[in-house]
């Protein structure tokens, strides 16, 4: 993936198995979010191929990729602050609820029925994360705290029953124990959905260690190494990417 002269992703070769939790690690600007954007169709890749579940979805529109079962959260949470909690979550569940123009306007009773069902579904999902939110499901998201907003974003991504979930730095802007609590909630959700695959971008190594089954390290758009958390931590290349090399006397 190339932006004019800058090569954001350089011959990145990554395959993810079903049911895995893959941690994507690397210093800032190493192409992690760009990878997310390429897979979810926001950027059209200048080279290479994206294959999902046997289908080649390179260059598909974001809508098509979402329909295929890939959903995501964003580094800077892009929730619709003016809208209510239920509205934001409902955005993620869209492919099943589209009644078309006439359905929405004329068949109001049918709409009310589906609306009640959807509220039920959303409430059930939120109860998993934060039961306190259930009471104020119609309140605008603007009044919520950072962690609640992160929870809503995850609910939005999960309500459409995706096969693959991209989590982009869920811990950004949150305290340490809040992040841990969020990760526990994600793990509990993962246990219900056997076949859900998660790709997680995270900087806190503690969380990566605890949650992920496999990790991949990116640096300047290239994949340094791949493997379980313990193997990559020991890898000298990774340390160098993060901490830089010890420099001997004469080199200085």
């Amino acid at each position: 993936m190339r932006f004019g002269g800058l090569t954001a992703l350089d011959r990145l070769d990554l395959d993810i198995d079903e049911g895995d939790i893959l941690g994507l690690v690397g210093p800032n600007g190493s192409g992690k979010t760009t990878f997310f954007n390429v897979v979810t169709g926001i950027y059209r890749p200048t080279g290479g191929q994206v294959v999902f579940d046997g289908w080649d979805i390179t260059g598909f529109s974001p809508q098509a990729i979402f329909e295929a079962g890939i959903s995501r959260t964003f580094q800077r949470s892009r929730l619709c602050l003016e809208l209510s909690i239920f509205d934001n979550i409902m955005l993620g569940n869209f492919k099943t609820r589209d009644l078309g123009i006439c359905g929405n306007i004329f068949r109001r009773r049918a709409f009310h029925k589906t609306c009640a069902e959807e509220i039920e579904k959303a409430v059930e999902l939120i109860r998993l994360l934060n039961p306190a939110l259930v009471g104020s499901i119609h309140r605008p998201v603007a009044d919520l705290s950072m962690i609640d907003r992160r929870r809503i974003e995850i609910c939005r991504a999960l309500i459409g029953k995706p096969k693959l979930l991209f989590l982009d730095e869920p811990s950004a802007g949150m305290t340490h124990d809040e992040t841990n609590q969020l990760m526990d909630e994600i793990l509990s959700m993962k246990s219900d959905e056997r076949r859900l695959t998660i790709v997680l971008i995270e900087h806190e190594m503690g969380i990566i260690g605890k949650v992920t089954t496999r990790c991949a390290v990116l640096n300047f758009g290239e994949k340094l190494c791949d493997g379980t958390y313990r193997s990559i931590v020991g890898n000298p290349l990774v340390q160098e990417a993060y901490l830089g090399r010890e420099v001997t006397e004469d080199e200085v």
Partner: protein
Amino acid sequence: MRNTKDFFRCAGLALALFAYLTLFFGAEDEWSIAAYVLLGVGGVIALVSFGALPAIERLIQANERACQALMIAGTLGIIAVFREDHYTLFLLGTIFVYSAAVLGINVQLGYAGVINFSGASFFGIGGYTAAVFLQNTPAPPLLTLLLGGIFSAVIGSILLFPVLRTSGHYSALVTMAFALLLKVFLEVSEWLGGPQGLALPSLKFLGIDFAEDLVIMGNEYSFYVKYDLACLLLLIMTFTFAQRIERSWMGLAMDAVRIDETAAACFGISVTRWKITAFTMGNFVIGVAGALYSMMLSYINPSNFTFSDSLLFLSILLLGGIGSLWGVIAATAFMVVIPEKFQIIQEYRYLIYSAMVLMMIVFRPSGLLPRKPRRYIAGGPL
């Protein structure tokens, strides 16, 4: 209905509001008008200072269906009070039709975020379509109303391609250019009556000719009563249409498109589809309102649908509070009646009027009745 006590409170509020409106409409000379304006402003300030507003809001939201019925009853009451006063009825009709048109713009801008600076142009296209069809074809007037809407939506679709490709100020320019272009086009094209404009026969519907005076139990009332009822019906239909759009998945999709296109795209919402739907539906509603208004006027010419009229529509939407349906109706009443009532200061009217709008935008940007969070079922939980 929560309980009868609530009903009486709502009824009391509605009565107070409509009594004030009736007195205000009846006021003739400038002293009584100024007195009523001060009374109104004083009343609002009193409500705000006593903190009664939140209570009233909860009351209204709890009994939404009843309040809407009360509002319609009150409006019919006003029409009955002024049944002989042609001028006030004409003003009421204008308020209803303009509100319907601005609701159309609200669907475009308030919901899907598509800026439309040529609102009055589509209003004019509706009017001209009705005029041309009524003059040259035996089409029944009611059909020409629909044709006005359809033509305005079809011509609107020409603008769609540039509007969809541009965003923000750039799409504002595209619609501005169209507004300026259309007025000159109407003025120059002979077959549309050129600068003189076109005359329109009156609306005939099921044998009722809207131009003859209304005769009930022998006594004669102004023919504008028929037009007012037609315009009120159009407004009610547009209001329910817009409210149902907002309270449906379509409304949700349009809001998502307005707030953050990328996020909406990532969740399967086709941005172009909803922008096209909102733009076309809005233009259809504006076209129908334009056709009805032109029939009421019975004569239209290009200088009615200029760029400054489009500005008037957008100012109404902004003053009412973008996206808020009742805000649009309140702002329309304000923007149509105040300049008419202040006819006395004549040539200073426009100066004071635009200064007032400027003050309003700077000091109260959210508008008269800002938009409330969406509730899918009337009177639902909050």
